[in-house]
C-alpha cells in the first residue's frame, strides 16, 4: 500500500534523507520514531507530494507520488501535530466543507456519525472551532480523514500536547482504523504510544532508517532502551 525505495532528499548542503526504504501493507500501522530533524516530517511530506525527493521513488497503492501527485491525493489523508481548521465554522461545518471539497456530500446524520466515531461529544458538534481544545480539533481532523475514505493516513506527532485521556481515545481510534484496513504512517516521539498502536516501528537518525521492528516483539521499556542506544 505504501512504499519508499531508496529515497534521498537534500536541502542545499544538508541531507535530510539517506536512501530510505519502507514498505507497508494494507491495515498496517507504522510508527516512525526519531529526534527532531531526523527526517520524519520530510518523509511524510514526500508521500504527501509537498516535497520532491532528490532521488528515489515513493508509491502509494502502486502509484508514483512523484509522477502523479494529484492522483494519489484522493487516497491519502493527513493529520498534523496541530489540526488547523476554520475557527469561525463549527466542527460539523468544517467536516462538511472539507468533505465537499474532496468530492463527498454527506447528509447531516452521516456527518454526525463521523464525528461520533472519533469520540467527539455531541454537544461540541455545533460549536465554533475556536472554542475547541487541541484534542477536539484532532478528532475533527480524523473525522475529515475517515469521511474522505482515505486508504492511507499520515499522522505527524498526533498525540503531542494531548492529555492522557485524549491520547488514549486517540490510540483506540487509530487501532480501530487499522483494523478496518486503513494503512497508517505516523511520525512520533512517543515510544509508549508507538508500541501500543503500531504494528511496525522504525527508528530514524540523521536521515537514515536505523532500525525496523515488529511492535509485538517489544515492550515499551525494551523499545525505549533500544531507542536510547540507537540514538
Amino acid at each position, binding site marked *: 500500500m505504501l512504499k519508499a525505495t531508496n529515497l534521498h532528499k537534500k536541502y542545499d548542503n544538508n541531507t535530510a534523507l539517506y536512501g530510505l526504504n519502507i514498505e507497508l501493507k494494507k491495515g498496517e500501522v507504522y510508527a516512525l520514531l526519531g529526534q527532531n530533524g531526523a527526517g520524519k516530517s520530510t518523509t511524510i511530506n514526500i508521500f*504527501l507530494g*509537498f516535497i520532491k525527493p532528490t532521488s528515489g521513488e515513493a508509491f502509494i497503492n502502486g502509484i508514483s507520488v512523484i509522477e502523479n501527485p*494529484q492522483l494519489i*491525493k*484522493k487516497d*491519502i*489523508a*493527513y493529520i*498534523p501535530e*496541530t*489540526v*488547523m*481548521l*476554520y475557527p*469561525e*465554522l463549527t466542527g460539523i*461545518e468544517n467536516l*462538511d*466543507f*472539507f*468533505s*465537499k*471539497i*474532496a468530492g463527498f456530500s454527506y447528509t447531516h446524520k452521516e456527518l454526525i456519525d463521523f464525528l461520533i466515531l472519533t469520540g467527539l461529544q455531541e454537544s461540541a458538534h455545533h460549536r465554533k472551532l475556536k472554542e475547541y481544545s487541541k484534542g477536539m480539533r484532532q478528532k475533527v*481532523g480524523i473525522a*475529515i480523514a475517515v469521511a*474522505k475514505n482515505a486508504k492511507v493516513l499520515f499522522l505527524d506527532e498526533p498525540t503531542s500536547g494531548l492529555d492522557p485521556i485524549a491520547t488514549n481515545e486517540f490510540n483506540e481510534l487509530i487501532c480501530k482504523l487499522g483494523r478496518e484496513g486503513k494503512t497508517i504512517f505516523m511520525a512520533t516521539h512517543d515510544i509508549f504510544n508507538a508500541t501500543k498502536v503500531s504494528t511496525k516501528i522504525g527508528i530514524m537518525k540523521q536521515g537514515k532508517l536505523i532500525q525496523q521492528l515488529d511492535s509485538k516483539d517489544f515492550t515499551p521499556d525494551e523499545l525505549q532502551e533500544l531507542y536510547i542506544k540507537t540514538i
Partner: protein
Amino acid sequence: MNKYLYKQFFQNKVYVFSLILLFLLGIVSIHTGVTFLEKNNQLMQDATEYQEQSIQKNTAHETHIGSTLYYIKFHLFNEPNKLTALNIGMRDFTPSLKGVTIRNLEEQKYNTDFYNPTSALAGNFDFSFVLIFLFPLIIIAINFNILSQEKESGTLKLLSLQSGNIKRIIDTKLLIRFLAIISIYFLLLLTAKLWIGIALDSTFSLFILLGFLYILFWFVLCRFIIASNKNTSYNALSLIIIWIGINFIVPMISFVLIQKMYPIEEALQTVIEQRDGYHNKWDEPQKNTIDKFHNIYPQFKTNDTIFNNDFNWKWYYAMQHLADVESMKSSIAYQSKIKARNNAAKLIGYFLPSMHTLILSSELALSDQNNILAYENKLKDFHKEKRLHFYPLIFSNQDSTVENWNNHKLEKFKAQSNVSILELLLPLFLIITILLIISHKKLRKLC
C-alpha cells in the same frame, strides 16, 4: 463548498465594513454629481435671465446697434448629460457656460465667470473617483491574503490534500468577492440611475461595461499576485505599489513626458497676437483696417462712411474681427496640440487600465478634453453666426430697434460621445486575458 466560503467571507467583519464603506462613499459621490448637475441647471437658468435682462437694459434706448452690441453678451451653454454627474472630469475647472459679445472672440474665450481655484485642489469626489481609486483599494484589501492566509494559518496543506485543486478554491473565493464588489457597483449604478434619471442607453451601457471591466482587471491582477504564492506582506505590498504606480506615478510621468513632447507656446502667443492685432489698430489708419476687413467680407462694403480716423462702429467691429484673424493660426495650432496631447494620453491609457478607464469614462460623460475643444469650436461657430447676423445691421448703420431681440435666447450645445466599443473593450480585455493566462499557469503549479 461555496456555502462555507460565502459564510467565511461574510463572517469577517472587516470585509463587511469595507463593503458598507464603499457603498456609502459611492452614495456620497453620486450626491456630488447630483449637486454638480443642479448647479449647472441653476447656472443655465441664471444666465437665461441675465441675458434677457441685459438685452432689455441695453435696448431700452434708441442707439446705433454697434453701441448696443458692445454690451450684450450672448450665452452658449455646454449642456452636460446626466452621466456627467458620475464623471465630472474636466468640467470641474472649465466653465459650462460662456457668454460672448460679437467683439473679438479669442480674448473673450477665457473671460468667464469667477472661479475659486482653491476649490479645485482636492478634485471632485465623483463616482469615477470612487470607481478608479477606491474600488481597487477595497478589492486589494479583501483579496491580498486569499492564499497566503491559508498557508499562514496552516489550512493550506489540508485544503490541498482534500481538494487536489487549490486553483478551484482560490477562484471560488475570488468569485465570491467579485460578486460582492460587483453587487455594490451595480447597486450604486442603480441608485444613480434612479436618483439622477440616467437613461439606460448605449452611452450608459458602455460606461457600465467599462467600470465592470476595470473591476474585473483588479480582480485578475490580485489573482496574478496571489498565484505567486508569496506571504501576506509581500502580496499586500506588491498590490499597493501597483495601485500607486498605476494610479499616480506612471500617469504623472506620462503627463510630464506628454507636456515635453507637445509644448504649447501657442496659448500665450494667441493672446499676444490678438491683443497686438487689436491694440495696434487703434494707431493705424482706419482705411487699412477696413480694407483688410472688406477683403474677407466684401458684401459689407459701403460708400456711405468716410474712414478719417473719427470713431465709428464699422471700423471698430472690423478691427475686432481682424484681431481674431491675426491670431487664428496660433489658435488652430493650440487646438491641434491639445488634441495631440489628448491622443498621446489615450495611447498610454491602452496600457494603463486606470488611465484608460478615466479617459473613456470622461469621454462618455462629456467631461473630457475633446468635449472642451468641441465646445470651443461650437462657441467659435456661435460667435460667427452672431457676427454675421449683426454685421449687415452694423454696416448699414441701423439702430437697435430694428432687431427682434426676443430671438436671442441662451443657446445650448450638447456634444455626442464617439467612443467605440472596440476602443473601450480591447485594451482592458487584452490585459485581463494576459494576466489570466499567466496566473492560470502559476496556479496550476500550486495544485
